């Protein structure tokens, strides 16, 4: 379960698809009655043809707007849901085929849904999980000590779970998910609703688990600070489709590499012209605003250097799109791309019929 015998914790996802078949009610009272006798079935594709992988010891952020298919993807990777098509392998195990074997390799935290027993002190829940996973007592105690050092659990772990604050409970849930030392961890919005101090503590804990313990982590979150602090690589999905798989820098470049350099020139009369990849957006006396131009625009720091080298400035300021802006642009861009794809396929379908 630990040390040399630990299996490699990689995640492989190939052409993963999940469709749900549900009934829907027809409008109106008559329609409702009709639906009872003759239900109207609809098929909804939650995840479509998603392919990505996570290397052992890597933290990958799976991002997307609400309803994008993130949680459905995680539920297929944890073995809770069976994919409609495609292949999944987590630490060498197909999760939905070998649920119990897979369970030993993974830990999971689903947002505000606790796996702790409401009526028991958190430490009792840990002991029950120790029994369920068959963790030797000495190992269990050592791991609890480690988690206590990082998450300060001992100040409240004798409190019944129902009396814990959200932050305390999520910290206990994180510990509970890792007590059996799984090589792969799935975290579905783990810090949702938590205050900034606890969030920071949890981020430190996750960083430690990845960097020091070599765990593979798949994280979904809407918190961009969390993404920028923890993830080097991001998979972006929208409408169930994979939109992008790359580093944060690549996402920024694709969806939101926008910046402004606001300079105040020492000589108000100085002639100003565009620089390579840098446009003059605005000029009011000595105040000039530069922005990116074309597809080969420099980064904000390169632009700053060019402006300073070219002009004598008395004051200069940078404005860079933050990750929230980038992701907003990415989600909107992804939605447009998705609708383009749909339109194209509709045109193709129409032409072929």
């Amino acid at each position, binding site marked *: 379960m630990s040390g040399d015998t630990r299996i490699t914790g990689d995640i492989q996802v190939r052409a993963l698809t999940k469709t749900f078949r549900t009934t829907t009610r027809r409008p109106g009272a008559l329609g409702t009655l009709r639906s009872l006798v003759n239900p109207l079935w609809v098929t909804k594709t*939650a995840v479509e043809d998603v392919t990505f992988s996570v290397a052992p010891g890597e933290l990958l952020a799976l991002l*997307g707007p*609400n*309803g*994008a*298919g*993130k*949680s*459905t993807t995680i*539920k297929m990777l*944890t*073995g*809770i*849901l*069976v994919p409609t098509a495609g292949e999944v392998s987590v630490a060498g195990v197909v999760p939905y085929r070998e*649920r*119990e*074997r897979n*369970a*030993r390799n*993974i830990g*999971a935290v*689903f947002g505000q*849904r*606790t*796996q702790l*027993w*409401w*009526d*028991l*002190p958190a430490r*009792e829940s840990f002991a*029950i999980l*120790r*029994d*369920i*996973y*068959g963790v030797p007592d000495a190992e269990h105690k050592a791991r609890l000590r480690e988690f206590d050092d990082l998450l300060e659990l001992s100040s409240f772990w004798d409190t*019944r779970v*129902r009396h814990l604050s959200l932050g305390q409970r999520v910290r206990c849930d994180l510990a509970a998910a890792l007590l059996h030392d799984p090589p792969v961890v799935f975290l579905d919005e783990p810090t949702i609703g938590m205050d900034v101090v606890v969030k920071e503590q949890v981020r430190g804990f996750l960083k430690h688990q990845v960097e020091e313990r070599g765990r593979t982590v798949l994280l979904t979150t809407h918190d961009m600070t969390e993404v920028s602090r923890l993830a080097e690589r991001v998979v972006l999905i929208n409408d169930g489709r994979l939109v992008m798989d790359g580093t944060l820098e690549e996402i920024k470049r694709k969806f939101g590499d926008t910046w402004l350099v606001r300079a105040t020139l020492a000589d108000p009369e100085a002639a100003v012209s565009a620089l390579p990849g840098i446009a003059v957006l605005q000029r009011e006396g000595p105040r000039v605003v530069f922005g990116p131009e074309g597809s080969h625009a420099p980064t904000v720091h390169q632009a700053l250097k060019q402006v300073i080298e070219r002009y004598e400035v008395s004051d200069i300021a940078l404005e860079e799109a933050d990750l929230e802006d980038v992701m907003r642009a990415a989600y909107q861009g992804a939605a447009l791309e998705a609708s383009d794809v749909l339109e194209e396929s509709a045109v193709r379908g129409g032409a072929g019929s």
Partner: protein
Amino acid sequence: MTAVPGVWRTARITPLGELLTPPRMTGVAVQLVIQTVLVVALWRGLYADTGPTTAGLSREQAVTYAVLAVLATRLRELDRYAGRDTVMQHMHFGTIVYWFLRPVSPRRYYALRALGDQLYGLAWAAAGYAVCLAVGVVQPPHSAGAAGAFALSLLLGQWVLYYIMLLIDQLCFWTLRNSAAMLILIFAQNLLSGVYAPLWYFPDWFVTLSAFLPFQATLNVPLSVYVGRIPLADAGPQLALQAGWVVLLAVVTRLVWHRAALRVVSQGG
């Protein structure tokens, strides 16, 4: 898959929660005392206006039956709802997913939890029985053989009850909620198993109807064996019928678990 040796300790979850909540235990004790006093008064009152024997039961047999029925209801009446630990709540809050993320199957986990609940309930029932026996409210079994047959029948009856409760909980995988079904079940269980009144008092057609349902196997059979309404010589077929219900319900619930695992309803995208 190798079995985890300590997994049986999950059976202690509900009893531990109860022990950590003294008001709940006080509530149970008060409820038991009040119910016992009332049923004793009720049945003694009923027999005051009738002959010494009604529907084949003497006053002592009837009172013993009624008190044992009250005590037996403790076997599966733990307050899981307050602990947010019913299957319906797990479905509602989405925490049912964790049942499928552990190296113990949901079926086994559910069974172990139910076993713990029933053993804890048995401790209450046994304590109540000892008190009632000491104060002469219930009679002891007629013979060691009757006591043995009662113990076996009670075990089978609780097994049947476990599967009935499981079926109702499994409903949640399709309906998300089972409160209406649970209310119907509790009423049917109490009526058809003889908690409200021994089935011997009901009309023949009712007794015939209940013979085709599993409820009478849960309580009416063991209690009738205990009070001697079913003689020891006739207990064999009844025990066999109980065993039959256990096997049938075990097969059905196993199939339903299989289907339920494919239908874990997930909330959110």
